[in-house]
């Protein structure tokens, strides 16, 4: 028995000779908010469809709550709430009736409808036909539908897609509170790191169907920390001097690059160089935002 809520084993989907998802090992632990990132067309939605049993993997397995998805589909899906791509709804029905239709399938108590309408603040518009809803309202109805069955795991595919900044913020707060107050495990996909940055505890980055990074958000931050660039008169000697004191630097066109260090360490490096009679012309910090780092990862994805 593994403790993972979601665990995939070399999950692969090939359609018409094209590999859309390639040997994905995705793991999500209980209570985690997992940011599933990747540029457009990376394979996020395809992966999510496999996690929900909507499409069959070409190879590999999906385990949810430690159980094989294919063998225990309905039992496992009872504990899952999902939103895939844009929200699904029955336009001719009101918001309330849409929830009632799903409630009947889930056999949830009727009182649950008013509860979830309250959670997404849609109580007022619930009596109107959904075809007249704004995108934001449809998205909130989608989230309400997801919550109807009191799921333990939420799988949300780009839940903030097409929303205005206020709507994005609202959905984000909602997701955070679901994790914090209800202990739900949540997978949120997005093509923007900044969107999950503030709520994710772990991130997986998928690029061209392959997982190129999967670790805590802190590990990703560490990797994307800035570097210190030193411009000196004799690069070669300076590089050797630093190496002599155990500091690995990278020499590039008259500059030395070292991983970002504490202020004391930087001061120590300068002292060391001065002691070796090396002229230090410039010291600069080269900052890379998390987003830039993410972009760099996904552009040169295969080199990682």
């Amino acid at each position, binding site marked *: 028995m593994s403790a993972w809520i979601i665990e995939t084993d070399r999950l692969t989907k090939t359609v018409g000779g094209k590999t859309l998802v390639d040997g994905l090992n995705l793991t999500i632990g209980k209570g985690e908010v997992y940011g599933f990132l990747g540029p457009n067309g990376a394979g996020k939605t395809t992966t999510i469809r496999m996690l929900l049993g909507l499409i069959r993997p070409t190879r590999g397995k999906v385990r949810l709550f430690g159980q094989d998805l294919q063998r225990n589909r309905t039992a496992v899906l009872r504990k899952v709430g999902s939103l895939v791509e844009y929200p699904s709804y029955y336009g001719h029905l009101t918001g309330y009736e849409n929830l009632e*239709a*799903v409630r009947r399938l889930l056999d949830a108590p009727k009182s649950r409808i008013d509860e979830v309408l309250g959670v997404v603040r849609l109580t007022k518009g619930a009596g109107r036909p959904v075809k007249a809803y704004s995108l934001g309202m449809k998205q909130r109805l989608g989230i309400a539908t997801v919550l109807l069955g009191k799921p333990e795991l939420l799988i949300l595919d780009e839940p903030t897609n097409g929303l205005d900044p206020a709507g994005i913020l609202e959905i984000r707060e909602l997701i955070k509170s679901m994790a914090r107050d209800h202990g739900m495990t949540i997978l949120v996909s997005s093509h923007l790191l900044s969107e999950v940055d503030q709520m994710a505890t772990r991130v997986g980055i998928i690029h061209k169907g392959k997982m190129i990074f999967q670790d805590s958000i802190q590990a990703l931050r560490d990797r994307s920390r800035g570097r210190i660039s030193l411009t000196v008169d004799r690069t070669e000697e300076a590089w050797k001097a630093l190496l002599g004191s155990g500091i690995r630097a990278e020499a590039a066109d008259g500059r030395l690059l070292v991983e970002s260090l504490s202020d004391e360490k930087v001061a120590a490096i300068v002292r060391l160089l001065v002691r070796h009679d090396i002229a230090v012309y410039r010291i600069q910090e080269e900052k890379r935002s998390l987003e830039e780092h993410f972009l760099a990862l996904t552009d040169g994805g295969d080199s990682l």
Partner: protein
Amino acid sequence: MIARVMAAEWLKIRKKPIWFLAVIGPAGVVGLQAANFGLRYDYLVKQYEDDLWGGLIGNVHYLAVPALLLGLALVASMLASLEHQTNAWKQTLALPVTRFAVFTAKFAILLVVLAVSCTLLAVGTAALGAGLGFGYAFPAGELLTASYLPFVAAMPFMALQIWMSVTLSNQAVPLTVGIAGTILSLYSVRMSDWFPWKWPYLINEWNDPLVSAGAGLAAGFLLYAAGLVHFARRDVK
């Protein structure tokens, strides 16, 4: 579980013109025959003087078959469109229900709607006969056979239309097939007994309506099973 899925389906079709179709179909057939018998009363009553009720029931049945075939295609398409229109399959099929239950519920709803139509047709035919002055002693067995057995014999078309409508997002395809089949049925009486479009007319060399209905039931079940297997395995957009 099928009951739960059907409960959701009933809600979803509430504001769709499915019940309207279910009523307008038999009403149209009875209305046309009312006009037929009204306008040619003396001629037809003379023609069927040995068996007035039999003549009426036969005429209604003959007109009801194409109406049934067209109606079932339209209703099957409407049932599937509920999901196709906003691509709600991914929502429904990611819920804790089996694909077996989802497919079977659609099929069952179609059966119930058409069974209601057949009942209305039987009631309407009896009322028309009484209105035409044929008396109240209508041949119940004959009326029920002509009203319900075509429905049983049309099972393969119901299964086929549900299968196509549910799996193809472009409803033009199943609707075209349904309309083509309806037209074909008009010429099918002269075809071989193996021709499924002939079955709802209940005409066969054994002169036994149950043969046609039995063939329909068996073929209907096979097509339902094939559709179900395909639906259960396919990838959902």
